């Protein structure tokens, strides 16, 4: 769930509880209000979410230091996810993994097809700063695992927001370079898209936001559909 600082925390809590009761297996909070320069950033919402829900959750956004990660984990988050800060400072991945264990450290990667290859994008949350990096997606994901990332969330920018299905080709290709769980992100538009990504890419999980927020797909309905399609899911 993505939110900005003007959104009332009560909304977040209600949303989190509803998804939890609907049978979501994990929640990811993109805290795009978190500022890297603001040391007084208020993360009390993390504690309130942790007290409310009994499934794992991950916090992403603006985590640039071991101290920031510790604050979030201490408040009850299970994982922290880093994206642009890892590109700015790759040793941050190892520092976090060493301090908290790889299982806490998720690497988010925004990737877009350029000609015959895929490249990593940076600052995708900020329309003024978004830019391609020199890094090839596959190489960055291999390096991040060597540095201690315990999970990769691959957001396929070509399919993101289009609701035309996950990027099967890219995910299947990256999957063969992953020994840690790979999570598909970007493109879910209908229930069949979820079935397809599990059947054709071997990803460990699929992440979606807009189709759930809009109510176009409900989680119980999706999970029964996947179970009927022969995919193992928790009901």
């Amino acid at each position: 769930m993505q939110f900005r600082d003007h959104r009332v925390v009560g909304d977040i809590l209600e949303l989190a509880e509803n998804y939890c009761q609907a049978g979501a297996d994990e929640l990811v909070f993109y805290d795009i209000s978190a500022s890297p320069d603001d040391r007084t950033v208020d993360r009390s919402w993390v504690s309130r979410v942790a007290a409310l829900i009994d499934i794992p959750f991950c916090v992403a956004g603006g985590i640039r230091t071991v101290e920031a990660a510790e604050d979030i984990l201490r408040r009850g988050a299970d994982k922290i996810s880093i994206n642009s800060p890892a590109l700015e400072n790759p040793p941050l991945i190892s520092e976090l993994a060493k301090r908290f264990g790889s299982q806490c450290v998720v690497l988010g990667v925004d990737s877009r097809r350029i000609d015959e290859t895929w490249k990593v994008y940076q600052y995708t949350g900020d329309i003024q700063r978004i830019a391609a990096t020199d890094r090839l997606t596959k190489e960055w994901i291999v390096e991040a695992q060597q540095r201690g990332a315990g999970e990769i969330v691959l957001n396929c920018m070509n399919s993101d927001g289009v609701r035309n299905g996950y990027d099967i080709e890219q995910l299947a290709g990256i999957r063969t370079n992953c020994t840690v769980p790979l999570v598909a992100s970007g493109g879910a538009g209908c229930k069949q898209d979820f079935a397809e990504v599990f059947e054709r890419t071997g990803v460990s999980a699929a992440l979606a936001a807009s189709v759930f927020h809009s109510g176009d797909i409900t989680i119980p309905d999706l999970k029964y559909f996947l179970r009927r399609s022969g995919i193992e899911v928790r009901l």
Partner: protein
Amino acid sequence: MPDTRVAIVDCGGANLASLSNALDRLGAVSVLTHDAAIIRNAQHVILPGVGAAADAMQKLASHRLIEVIANLSQPVLGICLGMQLLAEASAEDQSTCLGIVPAVAQRLPASLDMPVPNMGWCKVHQHQNHELFAEIDDGSYFYFVHSFVLAEGGYTLATADHAAPFTAVLARNNFFATQFHPERSAAAGARLLRNFLRIRR
């Protein structure tokens, strides 16, 4: 269970809030502590653990808790790393552990089909009836996050599968343990914690 006093043994690890939250939701009074007297006098003791076996054992040793824990007679629940700490040793950094359960924690083999850490919801197969499983269906899903496991043994109450079956729940006298995180395993996890709190010395 308003009178249940649970000591959560502080052996490091940053994310213990979810465990005390889960106990709060069950109405249990818990305290995070490395005080030997509080641990000895608690009705129930939980040995959690996120992180590395060597770090956790070092932390227990620095608070002189190794003998204290090994000699506890009330119900004790190890969770995740806490299960591995009950073993004799762990292949993780060749650590010597508490030696309560006759087993050695081994690293899960990573492969393309089977990523490690094993992270996610896995089916847990109950091998026998046990009070820990009251009102929990066989084959229920629980949330796992781990890279090390104990093999099946005489202590095994339930297994889950990665490349091969491994111990998901164990019991040895008054010591119990889960490889999964009941505090993050929705309704089934809450039931298991409640069942543990109902076990009396």
